[in-house]
């Protein structure tokens, strides 16, 4: 791990008061804490901020992103780094922009990705506005991704050095204007280097388990949250095979995702998967695994990082989920904000509501929401 330390020691700690002011979004976790430390080392005038996000009152307690423990942790890190720290309430805007979007998406039968929405409207909206109001030039986060200035296309979003931790998938929503005011201090580091740095700097961070759960569910199940928040999603209907034979009953299409295998409640000789949701008939279509493949999809709300789509014909690697492997595809533009994507090979788990994100090598070109 000498490598990570060498990297750090080559960064001079400048006592330059003309260095730009940066707001770092802190969570109390190791990533944002080390990111803050790196910015301080690089001589920026650093201000820590933590968002208070919404969670369901009385049931889930505090939002996982901002528990009292996490906030105390972030304060301690800020105190150790000698930077000011402010907690900022974003409960209402988070509820309106992210949670309502999540509920709305499920109500309409898709599987929304609220993190994308949070990044676009909360972190690079609400929080960036607050950072700017404090006179900060940049908002920094502990995301694993890199930025690079390109003469022709402006700021490019690149995959992180640490392939395994790369978070460019959830950042494709950002505009050139937002990226102009963004720093990702961890982009060149691997997770293990970051852990090592936290150790070397004696940062008081406790490792929290990476969680796939949504922060505002506080570990609870999204289905019960949905049933409470939008009772209309409870809408029983038939489970059919692809020939239209009735195999059972479901409690509501919102509770199922394409490709899902568990929780169907059907005894069958072969494992059955959710193949499709038929909203006309309120029917869940299930079948064996080989029926699952689909080799094209449409996306809407497309954002191109460069601001403009690349010249066609466009071949790119496309990721259809945060954890999916990038697959080769041809992208055909449909109007200004849409695209039709044809994969070289069929994919089993194309999920409407999630994002398809396009890459040219390590460059993230943009992405859109799967229809």
């Amino acid at each position, binding site marked *: 791990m000498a490598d990570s330390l060498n990297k750090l020691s080559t960064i001079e700690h400048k006592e330059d008061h003309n260095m730009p*002011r940066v707001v770092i979004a802190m969570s109390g976790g190791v990533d944002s804490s080390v990111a803050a430390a790196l910015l301080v080392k690089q001589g920026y005038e650093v201000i820590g901020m933590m968002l208070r996000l919404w969670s369901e009152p009385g049931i889930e307690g505090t939002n996982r992103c901002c528990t009292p423990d996490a906030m105390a942790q972030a304060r301690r890190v800020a105190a150790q780094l000698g930077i000011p720290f402010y907690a*900022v*309430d974003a409960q209402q805007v988070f509820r309106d922009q992210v949670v309502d979007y999540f509920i709305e998406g499920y109500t309409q039968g898709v599987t929304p990705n609220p993190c994308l929405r949070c990044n676009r409207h909360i972190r690079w909206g609400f929080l960036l506005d*607050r950072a700017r*109001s404090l006179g900060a030039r940049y908002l920094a986060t502990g995301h694993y991704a890199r930025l690079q200035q390109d003469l022709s296309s402006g700021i490019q979003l690149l995959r992180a050095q640490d392939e395994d931790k790369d978070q460019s998938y959830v950042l494709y929503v950002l505009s050139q204007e937002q990226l102009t005011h963004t720093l990702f201090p961890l982009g060149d580091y691997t997770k293990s280097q970051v852990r090592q740095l936290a150790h070397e700097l004696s940062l008081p961070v406790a490792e929290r388990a990476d969680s796939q759960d949504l922060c505002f569910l506080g570990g609870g199940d999204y289905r019960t949250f949905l049933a409470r928040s939008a009772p209309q999603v409870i809408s029983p209907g038939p489970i059919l095979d692809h020939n239209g034979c009735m195999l059972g009953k479901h409690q509501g299409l919102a509770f199922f995702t394409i490709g899902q295998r568990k929780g169907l409640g059907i005894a069958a000789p072969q494992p059955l998967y959710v193949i499709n949701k038929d909203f006309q008939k309120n029917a869940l279509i299930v079948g064996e695994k080989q029926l699952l493949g689909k080799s094209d999809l449409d996306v809407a709300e497309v954002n191109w990082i460069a601001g403009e789509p690349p010249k066609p014909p466009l071949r790119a690697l496309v990721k259809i989920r945060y954890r999916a492997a990038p697959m080769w595809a041809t992208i055909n533009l449909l109007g200004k904000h849409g695209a039709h994507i044809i994969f070289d090979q069929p994919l089993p788990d194309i999920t409407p509501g999630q994002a398809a994100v396009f890459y040219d090598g390590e460059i993230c070109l943009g992405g859109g929401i799967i229809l």
Partner: protein
Amino acid sequence: MNSNPKIYLDYAATTPVDPRVINAMLPYFDQVYGNPSSVHTYGQEAEAALEKARETVAGILNCQPREVIFTSCGSESDNLALRGAAFAGRQQRGANHILTCQVEHHAVTHTAQQLADLHGFKLEYLPVDAYGMVQPDEIANHLRPDTALVSVMYANNEIGTINPISAIAAVCRAQGVPFHTDAVQGAAYLNADLQALNVDLMAIGAHKFYGPKGVGALYIRAGMSMIPTLTGGGQEFGLRAGTINIPYIVGLAEALELVQTELVERTARLIPMRDRIIGQVLEEIPNARLTGHPTQRLPNHASFVFDGVDGNALLMILDVEGFACSSGSACKTGNPEPSEVLTSIGLPPQWALGSLRVTLGQSTTAEDIQAFLQILPNAVMRARRL
């Protein structure tokens, strides 16, 4: 780090300890360190220091030393006053009714609420006017034969309004009902002559008047029945158990004496600065209102609300610019509940959420005020845009 100057304008939150107070305290950490309850000479020396401090405080407050109880802070003094008088009143005369108002510090309202929720006291809130002031007539209207205690603060921490305490005390006295005043915020600037004030109970906390944090006092008029809430040893006339904190008590006495002796000059120095802030803010910042009384207010206290401003964002902007202020009620967790004080005086939420409290003190200079007023309009504008 930030290269901006750091200017402290939050003396109502706390004050630095006066160096003279620190010096007075120092011998009692490692030289005169005995426990005043001990028989030996170490204990006797400590006890002498304790009683000397009590006499000093009594001298300043114009009361008997026996009437001064030392506690750990202003909140503890308020707790002892409310619980002690409420329980004693119930025990002795079946009194069951507590009268206070919603603009009190939480040390009073939350204690009263707990007495109501857990102990069955009937809690009633007195109306306040648009300045957060309690009118003595209202006391007369609300007193009941079974009222155990009336509690009205001397000066409001959030909006600076000074209540007509001696007039309120006179109403209570005429009816034979104990009257407590929370003077934590007022003690640094207001008349503390208890014979003139005529109250039965009065709470103070040293850190609001250039003394150390972690020590307070409660005046309990001789003859008041009180039930202790911190039980154990018989310290403080059996009303507050716990080993006596000699250095801090010495510090409180020294600080109170200094602050009350120098009160006139300090007040005269601060009022013009306070009024300059009030005048200029109301003149230069659109949609701004003064909160609290325009003249019957603490000499170091200017407080405002701004329509459509995120008060927390404003505090951050000011802090980054180098000015430490408050919204009035400290909240570091960013919870945007409007203050009960501001809603009680009739402000709608879009005003109440945009509050700013600027409180001056010993080190505040005219240049500080000048610099502050220079950046404030722009800071409010930036916070308003969010």
